[in-house]
């Protein structure tokens, strides 16, 4: 069943997979000879917020940090399976509350210190401890279920009591409640070891030049708005990178970076909206959508994230499920993908995107374009032809093409008789309004933290979740989510989440619109460069034609 998460594995050609570790093979990839080794890859990112795992939350910092650090486990998006990383094996207790990891022997940090269970404990406590940096980390929620979390966060304790280093190579994690999917949480790039030997004693220094256990080590320090340089770590325990170094070049806009790519100064960048067709014509499209090879350089594969309409389920008008159903049927998702995004997004037929365990096609039967069914739903709800429904406000944040999307949705709604007006707000004001429940229909994108259905079901639909912006509240769904979290058998758990997804779909609490897709391009000299649905590149396998 877990195979359902794999991203079209059969379509993959010559791709190394999503894992940068786990093999333990010495220098050189499969069939790798000296001819492949060497060179510096120039890689576009925008200015990251953090590269220190302490507050690693957005895609840019993660692209850098995931090469400097290895977490306990990793996820192979091709096979849809967890693979070993810093831990070579793990055990989960019957009741899904105790997780025991056996770490690799001989693994080293970039400063030569051995990687031990204590370093993991320290790295995790560093995230939760509110006194690590001037302000507490925004991502401590990853460890919210670990025993002792509340005490450490509130300052009442000095350690995370649920994380214990049994010996140098054995780490035991105890949760306050059953959560079998916690093993997927452990693959998050922020949950990595940090050397206890004093290297991270000064936050200011460490956050600019983190010392990790990953395949690349930082060269110098992060220079704001300019670059972050990393180079091959020769003492890495796993498959050593073929590249000598990677220059992450920081650009203020993707247009800017694309110009520099065309001038020959970048090997991997984003394709700005509106230039995708031209780029595909010039550089060729990748066979699988995730791997760059010479002549097949444009990546248009799926990302594990969903663009959806948040509907305020407490709104006097929209609390009527019939109206929500009609809205979902009325939206021509394909037209939005084609006209606004040049066909580089995929219409969403559910909330769980491809690449996540539990995804299956046609998951939400209301997430299709069917004007007749939309009209029928309205009639069944007692609003024949939209008669009697007051004008609905479609709110969105300015920029990012949202206005174009909302205009199309406005026209789609008008076609079934629902009048809607557009309400454009600046990002900060939009988030305020969303939080205050002042939005009738809005838009959001959800990027999965971990490739599991729980990260959608719980985060977006559990009644007390902070990210449940539609204020959906179904006690039956709540109970089933808590139940599913306790199932240790992977297949049975995925099945349970699919059942929950069906329950949620029947209530139409939100309207899925699109699944995001890559729009990236690599240079002619780039080979075997895999950029996964989680927006992390498998840099150790990539190589440059000389």
């Amino acid at each position, binding site marked *: 069943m877990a195979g359902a998460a794999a991203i079209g594995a059969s379509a993959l050609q010559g791709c190394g997979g999503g894992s940068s570790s786990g093999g333990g093979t010495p220098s050189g990839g499969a069939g790798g000879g000296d001819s492949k080794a060497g060179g510096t890859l*120039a890689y576009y990112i925008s*200015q990251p*917020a*953090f590269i220190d795992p302490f*507050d690693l*939350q*957005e895609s840019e910092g993660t692209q850098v940090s995931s090469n400097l650090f290895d977490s306990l486990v990793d996820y192979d998006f091709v096979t849809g399976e967890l693979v070993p990383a810093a831990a070579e094996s793990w055990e989960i207790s019957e009741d899904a509350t105790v997780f025991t990891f056996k770490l690799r022997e001989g693994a080293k940090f970039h400063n030569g210190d051995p990687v031990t269970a204590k370093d993991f404990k320290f790295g995790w406590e560093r995230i939760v401890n*509110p006194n690590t*940096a*001037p*302000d*507490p*980390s*925004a991502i*401590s*929620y990853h460890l*919210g279920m670990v025993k002792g979390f*509340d005490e450490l*966060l*509130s300052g009442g304790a000095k350690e995370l009591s649920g994380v214990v280093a049994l010996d140098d190579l054995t780490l035991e994690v105890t949760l306050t409640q059953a959560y079998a999917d916690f093993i997927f949480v452990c693959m998050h790039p922020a949950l990595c070891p940090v050397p206890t030997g004093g290297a991270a004693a000064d*936050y200011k220094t460490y*956050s600019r030049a983190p010392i990790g256990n990953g395949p690349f080590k930082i060269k110098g320090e992060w*220079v*704001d*708005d*300019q*670059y972050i*340089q990393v180079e091959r770590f020769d003492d890495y325990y796993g498959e050593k990178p073929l590249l000598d170094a990677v*220059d992450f*070049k*920081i*650009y*203020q*806009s993707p247009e*800017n*970076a694309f*110009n*520099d790519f*065309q*001038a*020959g*100064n970048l090997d991997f960048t984003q394709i700005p909206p509106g230039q995708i067709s031209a780029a595909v014509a010039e550089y060729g499209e990748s066979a699988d959508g995730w791997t760059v090879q010479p002549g097949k350089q444009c990546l248009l594969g799926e990302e594990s994230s969903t663009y959806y309409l948040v509907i305020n389920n407490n709104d006097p008008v929209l609390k009527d499920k019939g109206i929500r159903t009609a809205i979902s049927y009325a939206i021509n998702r394909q037209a939005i993908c084609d006209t606004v995004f040049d066909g580089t997004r995929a219409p969403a037929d559910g909330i769980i995107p491809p690449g996540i365990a539990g995804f299956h096609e046609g998951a939400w039967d209301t997430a299709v374009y069917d004007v007749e069914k939309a009209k029928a739903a309205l009639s069944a709800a007692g609003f024949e032809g939209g008669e009697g429904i007051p004008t609905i406000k479609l709110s969105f944040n300015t920029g990012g093409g949202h206005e174009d999307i909302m205009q199309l949705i406005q026209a789609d709604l008008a076609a079934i008789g629902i009048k809607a007006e557009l309400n454009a707000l*600046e*990002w*900060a*004001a939009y*988030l*305020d309004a969303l*939080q205050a429940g002042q939005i009738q229909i809005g838009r*959001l*994108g*959800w*990027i999965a933290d971990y490739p599991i259905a729980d990260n959608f079901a719980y985060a977006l639909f559990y009644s007390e*979740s*902070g*990210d449940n912006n539609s204020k959906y509240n179904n006690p039956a769904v709540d109970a089933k989510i808590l139940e599913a979290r306790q199932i240790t058998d992977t297949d049975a758990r995925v099945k349970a989440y699919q059942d929950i997804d069906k329950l949620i779909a029947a209530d139409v609490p939100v309207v899925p619109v699109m699944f995001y897709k890559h729009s990236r391009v690599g240079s002619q000299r780039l080979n075997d460069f895999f950029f996964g649905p989680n927006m992390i590149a498998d840099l150790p396998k990539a190589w440059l034609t000389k």
Partner: protein
Amino acid sequence: MVRYILRRVLQFIPVFIGVTILLFTLRSIVPGDPIRMIAGEKSLAPEVYEQIVERNHLNEPIYIQYGYYMNDLLHGDLGTSYQRHTEVSKIFADRFPYTLQLALCAIAIEIIIGIATGIISAIKRYSFIDVLVTLSTSILVSVPVFWLGMLLQMFFGIYLKDLTGGTFSLPLSGAGGPISQFPNWMHYILPAITLASVSLAFTARIMRSQLLEVLNQDYIRTAFAKGLSKRAVIIKHALKNAMIPVITFIGIDFGAMMSGAILTETIFNWPGIGHEIYLAITQRDWPIVMGGVILIVVVVMIVNLITDISYALFDPRIRYGKKKGSE
């Protein structure tokens, strides 16, 4: 003169206090919760939210927050970014040198080319050169900076690269440094030309019109009548008088350039302060916005002071700090 400078420096204080009060008032009016912005589309755990609010005194009344801010400021602390846990002083210390260097390059281009073409076109009025200068400055004034910048990038960086095998291609972006394959100075050419373009055209036009006006004055005719050479009349008598409005313009322009040329910085990926402040405003990262605006205010005040002092060097009739009637 010294008293004049001292008086001007003392005037900085009320301006400075006024600016900080204005900024604090604005930030309490503008919608958008800066702490919620930290996590973006994802929610922030309530305990974490509370801790950040408390540490940054955001739960206090606005005048208490102002007190905290001014106290820190007097101790040389501009605060810490909400978004990045980085000291604001470090953020600007890293970026301001780039803004300053680019502004200096641009202002040098503006002074040399702008003033020179203005003088030539005034002296050779209605000649072919004059028409050429008038026409090209008209075009430059009306060309948007972002368009010119992108055009230069396309032409030199992309189009000419293929044509000449890279011989004439110029670095499109960035400030150079160890990751650039080109010498550092090459990274300044395109952004400096772009930043200088509009101002250069204005300088040339102001220079031309001022010089033409002065050349019609009686004392110029007298100077010619005395038998002085044309060169001596123009340099010694006409130019000095015609320069005052040009200096005023260049001074204001230099102040504006040092406040961060957002468009030029964004097009050329220049790591200056303009883009940083713009981003901080959208993210409601108030410590960066406050620090940035305070930096700009100080810079503009200093540049204005220097401009005022330089008037006296060009026009002997202007003398500061003396009582009326003693001139």
